[in-house]
């Protein structure tokens, strides 16, 4: 009775928020208990990808700039942390300095790489950003010669975990019968960062800058005629989006303890883009949903292999191939069923052709 009245007092939304908080807090322990530690790790990665997707959403969703090389900024953040917090150069700088530095550096890269693309439209932009992504990866792969900076394809190992004085997130402790492992700590760190970036994204979205981004997405010429300095506003979008990626990269390096160029391929850029588009471009909640779904789905599809065994009593299809096949199929089906994304913005912050009677789709795309 008391509970009911209290619920009433709290209101519908607050109650939902409270339940969400409890679920989010208990989630890693429940997963650990019932599905195994691997699943906590999967959720950790889902949160990291949420950060990435939120960042890319600023560039693609708000400002309408198709970026196919976004993973480069993730790489910049990861290598910034990896080089400054590992035996590679014998540097072990504190994380609270290196993580923001990585975000800042990635933001700078965003401006430097964004600047030459300002005049380009649509898919020209896509291929140039793709090129930058590849250029950065190739450099990371080859900068072990003549001076060894990145250690080439072998990557950087023994990267410091997040630690402060004697407290390190690499320790496992037992507390009241519950084992709390690094994956649990990082879950909360990533959760905090994702929440933080959600707030940042929403605030930007509803600000003067956010409106300027969307105006440029809708019509660049009209935006310029409204007194918007389109060059600076686009660069702001690149820088903000990139800094999200840089932060995520630093966290990734600390979490993994190991990074190599292999983690930063074009396929990863495309995957983040899929998360943004599939979730619902321009809508933060949709984007996070997309990121979590596409991170978790391939893992769920791992069960397709054993399922095949149980149902058919033999391996018709190699389990890893089956998984990718089903993943491809899922992308198609989800997009066909929800062309605007799984959870689009309330009044479509999408680049849907609004006035089909005045502009043909093809032409519209060129302008987009």
């Amino acid at each position, binding site marked *: 009775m008391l509970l009911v009245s209290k619920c009433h007092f709290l209101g519908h939304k607050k109650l939902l928020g409270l339940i969400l908080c409890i679920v989010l807090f208990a989630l890693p322990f429940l997963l650990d208990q019932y599905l195994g530690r691997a699943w906590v790790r999967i959720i950790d990665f889902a949160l990291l990808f949420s950060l990435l997707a939120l960042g890319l959403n600023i560039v693609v969703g708000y400002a309408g700039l198709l970026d196919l090389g976004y993973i480069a900024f993730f790489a910049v953040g990861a290598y910034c942390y990896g080089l400054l917090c590992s035996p590679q150069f014998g540097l072990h700088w504190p994380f609270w300095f290196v993580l923001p530095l990585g975000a800042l550096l990635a933001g700078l890269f965003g401006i430097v790489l964004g600047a030459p693309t300002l005049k*380009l439209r649509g898919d*020209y932009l896509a291929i140039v950003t793709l090129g930058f992504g590849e250029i950065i990866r190739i450099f990371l792969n080859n900068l072990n010669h003549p001076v060894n900076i990145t250690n080439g394809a072998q990557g950087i190992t023994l990267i410091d975990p997040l630690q402060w004085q004697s407290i390190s997130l690499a320790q496992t402790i037992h507390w009241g019968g519950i084992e709390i492992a690094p994956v649990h700590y990082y879950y909360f760190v990533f959760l905090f960062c994702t929440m933080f970036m959600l707030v940042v994204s929403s605030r930007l979205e509803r600000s003067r800058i956010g409106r300027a981004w969307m105006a440029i997405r809708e019509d660049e*010429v009209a935006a310029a005629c409204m007194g918007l300095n389109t060059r600076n506003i686009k660069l702001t979008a690149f820088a903000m989006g990139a800094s999200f990626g840089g932060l995520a990269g630093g966290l990734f390096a600390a979490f993994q303890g190991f990074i190599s160029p292999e983690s930063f391929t074009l396929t990863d850029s*495309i995957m983040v883009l899929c998360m943004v588009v599939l979730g619902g471009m321009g809508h933060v909640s949709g984007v996070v949903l997309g990121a979590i779904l596409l991170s978790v789905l391939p893992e769920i599809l791992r069960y397709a292999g054993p399922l095949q065994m149980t149902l058919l009593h033999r391996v018709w299809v190699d389990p890893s191939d089956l998984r990718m096949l089903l993943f491809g199929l899922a992308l198609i089906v989800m*997009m*066909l069923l929800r*062309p*605007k994304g799984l959870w689009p913005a309330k009044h479509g912050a999408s680049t849907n052709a609004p006035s*089909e009677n005045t502009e043909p789709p*093809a032409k519209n795309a060129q302008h987009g």
Partner: protein
Amino acid sequence: MDIFLQQMVNGLLLGSIYALVALGYTMVYGILGLINFAHGDIVMVGAMVTLSTIGVLEGHLPIGVILLVACLVAIVVCVLMGLLLERVAYRPLRHAPRLAPLITAIGVSLLIQYSAALIWGKQYIALPELFKPSQYVWAGVEINALQIFIFVLALLIMASLALFVKHTRLGRAMQATEQNADSATLMGVNTTGVIALTFAIGAAIGAVAGVMIDLYYGQAHYFMGFLLGLKAFTAAVLGGIGHIGGAMLGGLLLGVIESLSAGYIGDLTGGLFGSNYRDVFTFFVLIGVLMLRPSGLLGRATTERA
């Protein structure tokens, strides 16, 4: 000088294949304004089907006939796939947000890749040695009959496509759809049919490119469509995407740039960078070109009308 000429010849040869694949991207882009992300994989299927057909027929028929049959089978398979791709991934989303078909195309690309992995396995598949092409040396440049054949065939295909688009009724319908799909519909052009036709032609040319890749590299792989598609798309953009002549020029140019940079990057940078920076060089050229000409080499500058 000999090395330079040799690299030029190699580059043009590779470039002619890039150009054929780039045509598929540029034609679809011209009409729909969309990147056909699965096109590279269709080319891969063309290469794989050719190898299988050759494997079946080898020893039973004369080599010329085998190649012709294999090529025809590849074209049929690829055209069917192209049509299916259009039907499944693009047609239902023609009025959807612009990036939606990009995702379905990525999905189709994954489907094709892993189906190919199932059918042909994940290892490289080699072309059986069918014949020994006669080798020519001219001004220090080595070239064999097969390579000449590939190059000439590629040029022939490009020329006939250009003629087709310019001078036939269907070609003009394609142009009209490209300029303005809605007006074309009003003028009685069956735009849905034209779009399907575009996918079909792109896939057919892609199939031939697949055959050429078999002959040129002597092998094929389920994942090769990805990198090939990336190169060809780059070529299409370099030339001015949506522009058929641009795809041809861009393809040839990209082949030459790659070939020359692989040969000379080490010398030019005093050994600082090796040929593993080849793609970096390629992308820098692309970015440089686009900074000077934001619509590619031959692309019309989209003058902004206010």
